C-alpha cells in the first residue's frame, strides 16, 4: 500500500470513528431513557402526581416536591430575570472599556464556572442564617437565582450584540435618548434571544439538587409550600432520596419521578430552541 492509500484509509477510518463518537452519547441517552420509561412509566398515574409522599413506596406521590419545584421555578424567575437582564444591558450598552468593566467581565466568567454546591454554601450562610429566612422556598430561590445569574447575563449580552447597529442609529437619529432607544428598540429586538437564555437557565435551575440540599431543602415535607417562607422539597431531591433507598419500589418511584423531571426539562429546552429559531429568523 502506498503512503497515499494509507493516508486515505486513515482518513476514512477517522470519519467512521467520528460518526460513532457523535452518536454514542446520544445512543446511550436513548437507551437509558428507554430503560427509565420501562421502569417508571407503569408507575405514573394521576395519583402518583397528586399524592403526598409516604413511607410506603406504592403509596408515595410527588405532589409536594413537584409543587416545591414550581414555587422555586417561579420565584427564581421573578428574582433573577430583572437583575441579570439589567446587568447584561449595562455591560453591553453602557460599560466603557475600563478597569471596572474588565473586572465585571472576568468576574462573570468566573462565576459561571463556580460549582453549584458552592452557591449552596453561600445561600446557607447568607440567606438561611444571616437573613434568617430558614430553609425556605425563598432562600432556595435566592440561591438558585445567584447560580443562574451569569448564564442569563451572558445570554442577554449575546442577544443584544446580535441586534443590528442600524436600529440604534435610526432611533438616535429621531432624537431618542439612550434609554429610550434601548427600551423601545434594542430590548424588543433582542427579546427572543434573552427569553431563550432565561428559559435555558431556569431549566438548569429546575434540575439542580445540590445547592438546595445544602440550603436545607428536605427530602421529606408533609405539605406543599403555601408561601415563600415555607419549607420545601423539589423533584431532584425527592429522586435523590428515592434512589438512596434499597427497596425496588422506591427505585421505580425514582424512575417515574425522573420521567416527570425530564419531561419538564425537555419541554423547557424545546420551548427555548423554538424561541431561538423564531428569533434568529426574525433577525435576518
Amino acid at each position, binding site marked *: 500500500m502506498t*503512503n*497515499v*492509500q494509507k*493516508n*486515505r484509509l486513515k482518513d476514512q477510518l477517522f470519519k467512521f470513528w467520528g460518526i460513532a463518537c457523535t452518536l454514542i452519547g446520544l445512543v446511550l441517552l436513548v437507551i437509558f431513557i428507554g430503560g427509565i420509561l420501562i421502569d417508571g412509566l407503569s408507575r405514573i398515574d394521576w395519583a402518583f402526581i397528586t399524592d403526598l409522599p409516604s413511607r410506603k413506596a406504592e403509596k408515595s406521590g410527588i405532589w409536594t416536591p413537584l409543587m416545591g419545584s414550581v414555587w422555586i421555578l417561579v420565584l427564581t424567575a421573578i428574582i433573577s430575570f430583572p437583575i441579570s437582564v439589567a446587568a447584561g444591558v449595562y455591560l453591553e450598552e453602557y460599560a466603557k472599556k475600563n478597569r471596572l468593566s474588565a473586572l465585571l467581565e472576568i468576574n462573570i466568567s468566573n462565576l459561571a464556572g463556580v460549582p453549584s454546591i458552592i452557591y449552596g454554601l453561600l445561600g446557607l450562610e447568607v440567606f438561611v442564617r444571616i437573613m434568617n429566612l430558614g430553609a425556605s422556598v425563598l432562600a432556595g430561590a435566592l440561591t438558585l437565582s445567584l447560580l443562574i445569574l451569569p448564564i442569563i447575563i451572558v445570554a442577554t449580552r449575546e442577544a443584544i450584540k446580535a441586534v443590528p447597529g442600524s436600529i440604534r442609529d435610526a432611533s438616535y437619529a429621531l432624537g431618542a435618548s439612550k434609554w429610550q432607544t434601548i427600551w423601545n428598540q434594542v430590548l424588543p429586538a433582542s427579546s427572543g434571544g434573552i427569553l431563550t437564555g432565561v428559559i435555558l437557565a431556569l431549566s438548569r435551575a429546575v434540575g439542580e439538587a445540590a445547592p438546595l440540599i445544602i440550603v436545607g431543602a428536605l427530602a421529606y415535607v408533609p405539605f406543599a409550600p403555601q408561601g415563600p417562607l415555607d419549607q420545601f422539597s423539589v423533584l431532584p431531591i425527592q429522586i435523590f432520596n428515592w434512589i438512596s433507598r434499597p427497596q425496588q419500589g422506591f427505585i421505580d418511584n425514582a424512575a417515574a419521578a425522573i420521567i416527570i423531571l425530564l419531561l419538564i426539562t425537555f419541554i423547557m429546552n424545546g420551548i427555548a430552541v423554538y424561541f431561538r429559531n423564531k428569533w434568529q429568523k426574525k433577525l435576518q
Partner: protein
Amino acid sequence: MESRFISEINGKKNYSNTMSDMMSEKTEDAKTEAPIAEKYKLQTKDVNVFYGDFQAIKDISMNIKPKSITAFIGPSGCGKSTFLRLFNRMNDYIEDFKMEGKIKIDDKNIYKDKIQLEQLRKEVGMVFQKPNPFPKSIFENVAYGLKIQGIKDKKLIADRVEKALVQADLWNEVKDNLSKSALTLSGGQQQRLCIARTLAVEPSIILMDEPTSALDPISTAKIEELIHHLKQYYTIIIVTHNMQQAARISDYTAFFYMGELIEFDKTKKIFTNPEKKRTENYITGRFG
C-alpha cells in the same frame, strides 16, 4: 465552436503536427489519444458546474499547453475561480457541488473515481488569493507537503525546502531565520513562501487564484517576475482581476463571462484584436 479557435491558436503556434492535433480533437475517444498528451498538459471538454440549481460553469472546453502561462480574466462572479479550482478538485468539499464533462491532465481524467484526490493535488499545486501560511515556522511551512507524504528523511526534506525557497526567490531573505514563525514575514514574503510551499511538493501545474490581489505594487512586481521565471519548469494558470497583469505575464488569456468562456486565445491577440465584442468591451473597460 471552441475547437475552432483552439485550432486557430495551434495554427499560429509553430508546432509541426497541427493536423494530427485537429484529428485527435475530433476522434476524442479513439485510440489516437496518446499524442495529445504531449501536446496538451490540461484539457477540459464540455464542462458544466452546478451549485444546487445555479449553473456556475457553462459548457467549457479548453486545452492548455505545457510550460505556458494562461491567464483567466473576467468580471467577479464570472466563474473563473470556480473553473480554476476544478483542476485540483478543490470544489469537492463544497456541498451540492456537481460537475459534468471531462477534465484531463496528462491525458488522465481527473474526475474518475480511481484518481486519488491527494495524488492529484501533489501534481497540481495551488497558490491562493491571500497569503495563507500556516501558523508554523518558515521551514515547517515549506516542509509540510513533504511530511504529509510520509517523507521522513531529514536531509532530503532540508534539501527540498532550500531548493523550493531558492526557486521562490525567498532563500536569501529567510535563510538565517528558518525557524521563525511564518507570520512574522511581510505580505509579499508570505506569498512567496506560499509559492515555495507549493513548489516543494514538485507539482507540474501551478494554479494561482489572484495571487497578488492582497499585495502592494512592489511585492506584486516581484511575484510577477517570479511567475515569469517559473514558466520554464511549470504549467501555470493564473486568475487575475488585473488586466495589465494578464497582459504582462501570460502567453494565453481566457475571458470568462457569466460562467461561459467567451474567448480564449494568445494574450497578444486578445488584447489587440479580440474576436468578440464582449471581450473588447471588457478589455477596454466599458464594463466589469
